[in-house]
């Protein structure tokens, strides 16, 4: 029933508001912008209490969409579980994505304020701010530039983009990711001490799993048979056992708690019951 209703609304919408072209499109867009401005100043007239309610309603309705999409009964259509709202999932996430991406300007603003001030006043480190701006502009320009497939300019553009992206950004990301190897070694060296029961357990487990992963470790117990009771003492068997029989249930139990915690927090936010600095502020 709900499916029919939603279908009808969608069809009515498509009939009444068809895509427009040319002047009509521009008129509609202009009209909408005027409407926004009117609504904008209208909203400002609201009393603080009404403002709070408005925010609560928007929050609730936004969440309601996903909640209903998930909980409403489904049918199996083309091998895919669907209900009336499922087909709006993709447009909805695209819509939210646009809203979030439009906020990117806040990030650019934040970076520009910090580095722009340093640069304009020649404060210490202005050179680094200059570096930042240079590479941001270079990357954005050569990234977005639209290219004709087979021209000299396009080839140069592609080459520079590849230098910036593969030689620069990807190498930097790969290196930053790999630097964790150093930190993991020094963290292990510093933290794994037989200081107390907890630290010792942490160390022992890490030790066994680590050994189980490399040739050097397997070599230690390679003289043990691969079958039978003694095979349980092989380092890779012990390592597997730790990962599957100890780690797995522990992580699962933590996951149950995290799930309920997440649900409770989401529920408080969704229903505007949350307390804390952001939510207690007067509007």
């Amino acid at each position, binding site marked *: 029933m709900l499916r029919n209703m939603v279908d009808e609304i969608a069809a009515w919408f498509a009939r009444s508001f068809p895509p427009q072209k040319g002047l009509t499109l521009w008129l509609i867009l202009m009209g909408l912008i005027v409407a926004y401005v009117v609504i904008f100043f209208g909203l400002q007239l609201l009393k603080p209490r009404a403002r709070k309610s408005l925010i609560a309603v928007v929050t609730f309705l936004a969440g309601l969409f996903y909640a209903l999409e998930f909980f409403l009964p489904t049918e199996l259509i083309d091998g895919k*579980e669907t209900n009336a709202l499922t087909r709006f999932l993709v447009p909805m996430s695209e819509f939210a994505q646009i809203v979030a991406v439009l906020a990117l300007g806040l990030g650019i603003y934040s970076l520009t304020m910090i580095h722009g001030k340093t640069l304009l006043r020649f404060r210490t480190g202005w050179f680094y701010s200059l570096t930042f701006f240079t590479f941001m502009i270079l990357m954005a320009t050569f990234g977005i530039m639209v290219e004709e497939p087979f021209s000299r300019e396009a080839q140069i553009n592609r080459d520079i983009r590849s230098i910036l992206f593969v030689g620069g950004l990807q190498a930097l990301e790969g290196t930053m990711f790999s630097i964790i190897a150093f930190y993991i070694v020094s963290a292990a060296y510093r933290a794994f001490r037989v200081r107390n029961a907890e630290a010792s357990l*942490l160390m022992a487990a890490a030790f066994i799993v680590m050994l189980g992963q490399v040739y050097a470790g397997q070599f230690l117990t390679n003289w043990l048979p691969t079958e039978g009771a003694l095979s349980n003492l092989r380092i890779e068997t012990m390592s597997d056992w730790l990962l599957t029989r100890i780690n797995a249930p522990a992580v699962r139990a933590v996951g149950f708690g995290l799930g309920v915690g997440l649900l409770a*927090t989401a529920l408080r936010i969704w229903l505007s019951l949350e307390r804390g600095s952001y939510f207690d502020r007067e509007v």
Partner: protein
Amino acid sequence: MEHSDPVNSTLTFIICAAILTMIFRSRRGKQPFIRRIPGLNAIDDAVGRATEMGRPMLLQPGLGGIDVITLQALAILAYVARAAARFGNRIIMPVADASFIPVAEEAIRESYNLEGRVESFRAEDIMFLSDRQFAFAAGVAGLINREKVATAFLFGLFFAESLIMAENANQIGAIQVAGTPSTTQIPFLIAACDYVIIGDEFYAATAFLTREPTLVGSLVGQDIGKAVILLICILGVLITTIMGPDNFLMNWFTPLWWKR
């Protein structure tokens, strides 16, 4: 799971009902007991230390944007910011999602406001660095070293980059308190930080810190929810042991999309 099935819906409903009931009961003045979370006591000490040393504190809400987890992290950090405002510490809060900036700014400004110190709030201390994981980590690592932060609070959604930040802060001798729902990162935080809250202590933290009736009530509701799940697990094991793998409980809980 793409869509809920009746068993999941029922269970979710029961848990939600428990949480809401406990929230409203607690709001009506029935303040329940909650136990201590050792790591969180360290927050005040860590703030105190930064005050003594006269160096800034790093507040790190992780990689998330406007979402439930990051908002929870922000609630914990807002508590830290209140203490910072009280003692006049400088805070540095790098964020990794541009749309999160307004939320963070509002929350931290309000923290200063509650302490009557709104004039010492500096909006540029909440700074966007990058939304790319490792560029962000590189930036935070640089900040930690340059600003010589006295303490670091890492609360939020972390991935592999957690250790980069935690080790850099450790190297310059900063005191660190951390908590994250990303279980796979907790071992590294334990190795590099002074205090780590584990698992859903992350979601319990604000209730513990503020003793706000709503949050405390919610925590009691969460306990009921967990107890229900635990009970189902125990029952399931017993019934499967007695009746074999093809029993009613097993069939109930097998998701529809598995069967189809």
